[in-house]
């Protein structure tokens, strides 16, 4: 074993195979780190997303090999780990960020397994002197783990040259550069807007080591998501119900404000509401108490009542609740 490994206790505790044999048993390293478990969890949690999962796997492999290299005294200081997750809403960025934090922690790149998620409002103040304390507060809370900044481009408002967002960006940059051992930052948002943001903030772009693009889900994937989400809540579609869901998805993706998995979840919530109301009025008309089977089943009519089928947009879930 090398001295480099001996001086890094974080590594030494995780990298026994390297320490004892002197050779690099990557498979053993992988097993011990438990990264495989995280990847499986990711597979369970998220349907599809093959390109994203493969990117995450690549990053995990890179980090693993970096560790092995480090144990042999190869390569320079700590790698930059800051990342950018781009994609439309509902494509799994937050979930993947949680799993990424898990991977970083298991591999010993972060001390704690936590993600602090913020937006512009958490970082930028409204008055002079308010921004630095707010940004620092968020950074301090995230220390040791991952800071996830959603819709990061709102930090930069070129139309207002006195916008306090710039101050937040500068503080962020400083910490991203000087405290790479203490914090990993993940910036997230729509791809096109993030690209504009990076073009205007080259300092930020240069500190991002990994870009992960999250594609929209295919209609088939969305349908599987619908089934998965329903099953998690102990519901299932009957045959007509599944067909209705498929049609619903096909119509919904063409409409504005489509938010991938999130739109599917909202549609399911409304369908559950309609199913409950359907069972309730049936009982009022003297039907027998619904059995377990009927309580679990989402049917075609629970979906087809949606305005999406009438060429209209689905109303917000909050108003549906009233």
């Amino acid at each position: 074993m090398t001295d480099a490994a001996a001086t890094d206790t974080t590594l030494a505790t995780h990298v026994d195979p390297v320490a004892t044999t002197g050779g690099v048993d990557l498979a053993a390293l992988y097993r011990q780190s438990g990264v495989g478990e995280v990847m499986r969890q990711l597979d369970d949690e998220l349907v599809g997303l093959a390109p994203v999962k493969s990117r995450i796997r690549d990053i995990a492999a890179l980090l693993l090999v970096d560790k092995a290299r480090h144990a042999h005294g190869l390569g320079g200081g700590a790698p930059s780990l800051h990342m950018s997750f781009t994609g439309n809403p509902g494509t799994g960025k937050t979930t993947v960020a949680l799993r990424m934090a898990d991977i970083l922690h298991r591999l010993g790149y972060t001390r704690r397994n936590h993600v602090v998620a913020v937006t512009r409002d958490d970082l930028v103040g409204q008055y002079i002197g308010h921004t630095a304390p707010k940004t620092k507060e968020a950074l301090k809370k995230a220390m040791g783990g991952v800071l996830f900044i959603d819709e990061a481009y709102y930090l930069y408002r070129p139309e207002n040259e006195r916008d306090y967002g710039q101050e937040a960006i500068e503080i962020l940059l400083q910490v991203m550069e000087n405290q790479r051992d203490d914090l990993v930052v993940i910036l997230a948002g729509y791809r096109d807007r993030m690209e504009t943001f990076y073009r205007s903030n080259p300092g930020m772009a240069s500190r991002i080591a990994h870009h992960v693009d999250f594609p929209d889900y295919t209609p088939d994937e969305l349908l599987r998501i619908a089934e998965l989400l329903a099953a998690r809540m102990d519901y299932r579609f009957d045959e007509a119900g599944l067909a209705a869901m498929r049609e619903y998805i096909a119509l919904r993706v063409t409409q504005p404000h489509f938010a991938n998995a999130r739109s599917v979840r909202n549609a399911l919530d409304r369908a559950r509401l309609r199913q409950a109301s359907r069972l309730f009025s049936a009982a009022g008309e003297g039907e027998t108490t619904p059995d377990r089977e009927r309580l679990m089943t989402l049917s075609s009519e629970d979906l087809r009542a949606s305005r999406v089928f009438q060429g209209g947009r689905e109303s917000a879930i909050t108003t549906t609740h009233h």
Partner: protein
Amino acid sequence: MRITQGTFSYLPDLSDAQITKQLQYAIDKGWAVGIEVTDDPHPRNTYWEMFGLPMFDLRDAAGILLEIHNARKTFPDHYIRVTAFDSTHQVESVVLSFIVNRPKEEPGFRLVRTEEPGRTLRYSIESYAVVARPEGARY
């Protein structure tokens, strides 16, 4: 003279690595940690200046260490201590407090005795540094 207030004053000055471990102990207990600064270390001077508010809800000591570094940069020749607060019912007070920065020279205190009738004496403690110079220019 070395002022020995605080939990660890009889040990050699703590390194940042040692300070980090104590801070993490406090964070893991759910305590809030504040940084306080003074150039008047009289034993009964309770209220040192706060260097920002106590930090709540942190998970890692790096955030506090960052502020300790800021405080040292701003007040290199002051006394700086970190103070941990436990909000548990019927504790609700300080539970750990130790010095993380002290002036290069510590002139210490003079015991002032005032003779009273009989054999009685009245005592007060006077800081040489405080008597010599105004706040901000003492060390």
